[in-house]
């Protein structure tokens, strides 16, 4: 009932993890598999290893959101082989997220991922706090086009473009599809900040961070809705999903699959709960397959 296919991947159910929740080491993939995700998404991998920012890198907010600036800590391109092997051993499709400061970096990473036999490549065009690694890219439709087109041309695995909130999200989405992206992952975290009112300092070492979790869910719904309405593209919806009802909203807005990040940190059973809720929902509405409901809130 819950099987979906997206970007050529056939998934048992629609819930994968969001990039950056673990996923930089083979051992992390084992933990993610244990949470029940239908596909495993790696942490964004860059060409060179990155230490990331010193702690604090994450802070839980009063509004139930999470603010993070991890700084794309990752072991670099050499780690891709080990991740691919681990995913195979675990019997789960691997979506390898890659990020880079420029076109070349994306291309080299896509080649490496493709050679390692990953099941899909997700281009992180949208990390809102690692300078030169993100939002600037996703907010520039011409650059999105070039990066997508060039990675697609070297990758035997399907390419998914991950875009964040931006004034030009509609154009960027269009350009990503034009460049050959099989699907779009929407959205990344939203740029934000938390200040400790007694010490009077921004809490994160990087000062700025990305907001995730329940606060951004209605923003994700609107972006997915708008993009799906315009392009009827394959979309992976992400942003603040912590219950089946959040997932269902994104599916109705046009998402064929869902990613969950923040919520799994607070509830290890969230994948199971989402799927249980979705199953009941599909049958309450009198449908046989979840996929039939994709985008049905969009006229």
């Amino acid at each position, binding site marked *: 009932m819950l099987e979906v296919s997206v970007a050529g991947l056939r998934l048992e159910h629609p819930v994968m993890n969001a990039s950056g929740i*673990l996923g930089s080491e083979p*051992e992390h993939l084992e*933990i993610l598999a244990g949470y029940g995700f239908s596909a495993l998404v790696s942490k964004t991998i860059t060409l060179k290893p990155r230490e990331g920012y010193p*702690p604090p890198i*994450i*802070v839980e907010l009063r509004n139930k959101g999470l603010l993070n600036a991890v700084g794309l800590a990752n072991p670099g391109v050499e780690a891709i082989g080990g991740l691919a092997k681990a995913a195979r051993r675990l019997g789960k499709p691997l979506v390898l997220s890659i990020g880079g400061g420029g076109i070349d970096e994306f291309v080299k990473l896509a080649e490496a991922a493709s050679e390692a036999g990953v099941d899909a490549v997700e281009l992180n065009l949208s990390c809102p706090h690692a300078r030169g690694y993100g939002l600037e890219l996703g907010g520039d439709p011409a650059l999105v086009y070039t990066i997508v087109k060039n990675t697609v041309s070297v990758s035997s695995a399907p390419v998914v473009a991950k875009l964040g909130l931006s004034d030009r999200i509609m154009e960027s989405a269009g350009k990503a599809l034009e460049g050959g992206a099989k699907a779009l992952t929407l959205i990344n975290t939203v740029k934000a900040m938390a200040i400790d009112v007694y010490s009077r300092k921004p809490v994160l070492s990087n000062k700025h961070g990305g907001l995730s979790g329940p606060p951004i869910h209605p923003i994700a719904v609107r972006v997915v809705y708008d993009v799906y309405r315009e392009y009827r593209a394959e979309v992976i919806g992400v942003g603040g999903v912590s219950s089946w009802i959040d997932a269902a909203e994104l599916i109705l807005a046009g998402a064929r699959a869902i990613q969950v990040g923040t919520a799994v*940190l607070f509830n290890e059973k969230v994948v199971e709960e989402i799927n249980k809720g979705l199953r009941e929902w599909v049958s309450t509405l009198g449908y046989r397959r979840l996929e039939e409901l994709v985008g049905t809130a969009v006229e």
Partner: protein
Amino acid sequence: MYTPAKVVSTERLSSSMYMKKVKLLDGDTVEPKPFQFILIWVPGVDLLPMSVAGFTSGEITLVVRERGEGTRKLLHYDGFLGVSGFHGKGFEPWGYRRILFVAGGSGIAPFFHLAEKAWEKDIVVDVVWGVREAGELFNPARLLGKPRGDVYVATEDCRVGYCGRASHLASRLVAGNPGKWDAVIASGPIGLLREACGSLGGFLDVYVNLEAYVKCGVGACGSCVLKPHGLLLCRHGPVFKCSEVEEFLKGGTGA
């Protein structure tokens, strides 16, 4: 959750160890479980994982050993700071009657909170505490409401108590008192933990309180992964059965 806090007091306990009390500036905090830990943020400076050594109505007691830059700054800092937690799932060994806690150096920190909580449940926790130099010692009763069990001391400089390592003393105590304890919890340098698992595992249930590089504390960044196991210290720990982390203990370096 992130909570602003302020330093209440910092007191030197021995040549290298301090007791630091911080008060959470946000009323409604849940009670931490034994072995849960906090991440303590010295604003703009560093973030350090620290065990809860005591907790009363929003005031947390820490036992801190000065190690490097981070702990030194924490110890000298006297203003407002940030606390997140309580991290880890902690460990409540309430199925046992009498427990031997084997501590090396600042590994003793979580003992105090454990002993208090255990006492409320009629469980006795005795402690073997080893340090390198006698000057590092302080009287554990300082941090307990009243004496809660037996205290055995070991020093490697042989100036006080047993001459040698805590793990050796623990082995002797266990061998010499069969049936006295039904579990051991070892806490401190990885060498101590390895020895505890190796020499005591045959007799009774042995647990180890691990350390790892904690960056986020919530299971997101993966830096505290206990390779090659699919285990995170900040989610699944910090206390494990020896058998769960066998490969990690083999791989770890340090005395």
